[in-house]
Every structure is written in structure tokens, then in C-alpha cells.
């Protein structure tokens, strides 16, 4: 089951550049929230603050609080490693591990966490691949095909399976379909529909139709600030802020 995310006064910097300003947002459990906005508005940076990936960049800094369920992500005793296990991430460009088979790709996170028994691994790998709607396509070649030899859409679903295998509570997706063809994109979108039931999803997208299709809630970012956050329906039919309306109607971005 997924958990909710509460973000309070979140600020993030790249060196001296203030990329994300005073974000205040509550993300509902077991729903999909889309983050939209023009290029460079800070949506990816914001999302990467949720699983403490932002701080891996040299000279990056984060201030503010993020709570995932009952855990303070930036709390004193909290380890980044643990957060990243609980919050799965799918990147814009699929990045399967090329030196590993499909099976090993999915199992990578599990092996790190100490699952050694073949039965356990087999079970979880199959479950994750099924959840990612990839099982039928790879079940015969699990250990023979390398992660990088799949097609683009398959690779991305493999990355999703890999993220799901460690049983996260939240799934962050940073423009997961932007590098894919339309058919793969629609497969991924169907996937998100399924995943919503068990996970909390945050999806960054520059494709407004996609946001409208998959997400119940949408947040509009502009220049590092959260301009408007509401039910997707409202954002796209009757936005409260003029800037939102301008973006939606294509006046910029």
C-alpha cells in the first residue's frame, strides 16, 4: 500500500542557483500526481528531492522538510539509502544495467538487501515483471538476454520492474515515456493506472494530455515555484491562476 507525501517549505540549490522555492504540497496516497510545467521550471529537481537524489550532485543543497508516511526524509537519523529503497525512481532515459541479464537487473536491488535464496528471488522477479507488464515478453529469456538488448519501451518497463522489486511505497517517474514511441508510451500509461492501486505515484511530464490521462491530481510549476495544485480536472478545465491557464492553453512553454 502506498503512503502520502507531505512537503513543507522545500528549497533546493545547485551551487548558488536557487532552483526550487518554498514548495508546499501534500501528495495523496495511492493516487497519481502529475507535475507539469515548462522546461527548466524545477519539476525534475523537485522530484529528485523526494528521494534524496538531488544531493548526489556536487554542490547541491536542500532545505525544508519532506515526510513520506511517518518518516522525515531529511531527518537526522534517516539514511538516504533507506529512503531510496522506499521511494522508487524511473528516469527519463531507460538505464538498465547492460552487464546484467533481465533477471539480474530486476534482482539487483534485492541482492543488495540480502535476499539470497533463489526461490525468494525468482518469486519477486516474476511478480515485479508481471506488475511492469513485461513478464510475458521476457519470461523465456530471463537469464539469457542482457538488460540493454531489449527495445526502448521494454527497457523502461524493465526499469520499472527493477524499481518495484524492492517494494517501494512511492514511485517517482521523471518523464518516463518521453524517450519512447507512442505505443510504448500508452503501455506505460496503462501501467501507471494499474500501479496506482498499490503505490503512490508522482509523475513529471511535459505532455499535458498524459497528465490528464493518468493523474488525479496535477501540480503546475513555474520558475521553481508551485503555482497551482488541484484535481487534474479542475486544472485543465478551470485553472485558478492565470499563469496556469496561459500554460495550458499553450501561450508559452
Amino acid at each position, binding site marked *: 500500500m502506498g503512503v502520502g507525501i507531505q512537503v513543507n517549505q522545500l528549497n533546493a540549490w545547485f551551487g548558488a542557483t536557487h532552483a526550487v522555492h518554498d514548495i508546499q504540497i501534500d501528495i495523496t496516497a495511492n493516487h497519481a500526481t502529475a507535475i507539469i510545467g515548462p522546461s527548466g521550471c524545477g519539476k525534475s529537481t523537485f522530484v529528485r528531492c523526494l528521494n534524496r537524489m538531488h544531493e548526489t550532485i556536487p554542490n547541491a543543497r536542500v532545505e525544508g522538510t519532506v515526510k513520506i508516511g511517518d518518516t522525515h526524509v531529511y531527518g537526522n537519523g534517516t*539514511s538516504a*539509502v*533507506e529512503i531510496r529503497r522506499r521511494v522508487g525512481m524511473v528516469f527519463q532515459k531507460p538505464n538498465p544495467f547492460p552487464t546484467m541479464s533481465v533477471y539480474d537487473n530486476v534482482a539487483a536491488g534485492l541482492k*543488495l*538487501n*540480502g535476499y539470497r535464496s533463489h526461490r525468494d528471488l525468482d518469486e519477486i522477479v516474476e511478480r515485479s515483471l508481471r506488475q511492469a507488464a513485461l513478464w510475458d515478453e521476457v519470461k523465456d529469456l530471463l537469464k539469457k538476454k542482457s538488460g540493454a538488448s531489449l527495445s526502448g519501451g521494454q527497457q523502461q518497463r524493465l526499469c520499472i520492474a527493477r524499481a518495484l522489486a524492492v517494494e517501494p511505497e512511492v514511485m517517482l517517474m521523471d518523464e518516463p515515456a518521453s524517450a519512447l514511441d507512442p505505443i510504448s508510451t500508452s503501455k506505460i500509461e496503462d501501467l501507471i493506472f494499474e500501479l496506482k492501486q498499490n503505490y503512490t505515484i508522482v509523475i513529471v511530464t511535459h505532455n499535458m494530455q498524459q497528465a490528464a490521462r493518468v493523474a488525479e491530481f496535477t501540480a503546475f510549476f513555474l520558475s521553481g515555484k508551485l503555482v497551482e495544485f488541484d484535481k487534474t480536472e479542475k486544472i485543465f478545465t478551470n485553472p485558478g491562476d492565470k499563469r496556469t491557464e496561459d500554460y495550458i492553453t499553450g501561450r508559452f512553454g
Partner: protein
Amino acid sequence: MMQSKFWWRSLQDKVMVGLAAGATLMVLVPLVAIFGYLVYKGIGSLNWNFLTQIPKPVGETGGGMANAIVGSGMILLIASLIGVPMGIGTGIYLAEFGKKRFGYLIRFTADVLNGVPSIVIGIVAWSLVVVYQKHFSALAGGVALGIMMVPIISRSTEEMLLMVPQSLREAAWGLGIPQWRTTLSITLRTASSGVITAVMLSFARVAGETAPLLFTTLGNKFWNFNMNQETAALPLQIYVYAQSPYDDWHRQAWAGALILIILIVISMSLVRMAASRGVFKGGN
């Protein structure tokens, strides 16, 4: 189970980071030790006498390595006269003219040449020059070192020339400048500091070589300016003195080594300065 496993993983992480840092420190130790000892043991003997006198007869203290320093200079000059034109020429060929297969063959051969042990090059120079002339000579040593310089210069020259944007060449052709002029005055000139860097690098590399000189130049206790005779060379002198039973010669070996490393460090620093100044001047 996940919790204790995590503690173990965290420990592993810290240990590995520590080991990596430790390895770095361990590698720095010999570096510091070598340079330190060179200065410590050699600085006392570096005086005007040492730099201007030739070795004294066995048993007598004093004397210097002046003839070895000059001899090295002579041998390196011969080596450069052979190695630099051939190396640059090969580099130019590979960058500007080399067709797919043949160019690949040349490049591969140059890499092979690069990996040949210096003593084997010494054997070949001996066989080609010493046996033919029936005596040892600075020329033979120069040939050996020149051969060693060719692949180093060639590869770097090719790289530097390839970095010059094609638009520059096309601009020259468009003005009606012939190919050979373009290559020399435009392309090579643009890449010049990179090429000079490569030449100096190869120079620094062969300046310290001893093995190819062992049975080509042989060494000489006296002054010699005739390239057709045996000549003293700095690395050779250090090698002989270091293995001798005389303490005074050991002392001189350290001094000679210090001079050698100073000369190399100077040329490497010049290389660094030239490289950072403007490898790309004139590009784009």
C-alpha cells in the same frame, strides 16, 4: 533482517572508502620518498665542479658528469632529428591522408612499436648500426632513441590534427590554398602547441632511457663530441656508478640522478604550461 543487513552494508561502505583512500596514500609514499631522497642525497653534491668536470680516475674522489650531460644532449639531438620528422610525418599522414585499412595498419604498427621493450630496440640498433659500422657510437644510441620517439609523437600529432575542425581546412581550400600548404601552414600551425607538447613529452621519456644505450653508445670516461664514437650519457653514467663498489661514485650517482630528474621535471612543466595555454588556439 533488513536492518542488520543494512548495518553490515554501511560498514562495508565505510571500510571500502577507507581502503581506497589508504591505497591513494600508499601510492603517494614512494613518490615522496623517491623525490625526497633524490634531493636529500643529491643536493650536497650539486656544485659547479660536478657540472663542469669529467669523471676522475677510479679511486680518486671528485670529478663530475659534465661529459655525460653533454653526451646525453648530443644523443638526444640525433634522436630528435630522426624521431621528430618521422613521427610528425606519420601523424600528418594518418590524420590527413590515411585511408581506412592502411591507416589502421599504420596506427596498429605504431602501437606495436610503442610497446617494444627498450632493450629490444637497443638490440636492433646494435644490429643495424654498431655491427654495420663495426664500432659503438652515439649515432647508434641516437637511432635507438629516435625509433622510440616515433610512435609517441605520431599518435599525439594525429590526435591533435584531428582536433582541428574540418571547417578550417575547407576555408583554406576555398581560398585556393593547395593541400600541402593547408596542412603545414594552417592545420599543423593550429595544432602546433599540441604537437610541441607531444615532442617534448617524447623527449622527456627517452631522456631517461638507459637500456638502449647499453650496447650502442657504451659510455665514455672522457669528453667526446664525435657522434661516431662511444659517448657518455647521463642515465648510463648513473647506472654504472650506482652499481660500482665506490662510495664516492654512489654519491655522484645521486647527484646525476637529481640533475636528470630536474631536467625531466622542467620539460614536463613546460609541457603542462604549453598544453594549458592554447592547444585549441585558432580552433572553431
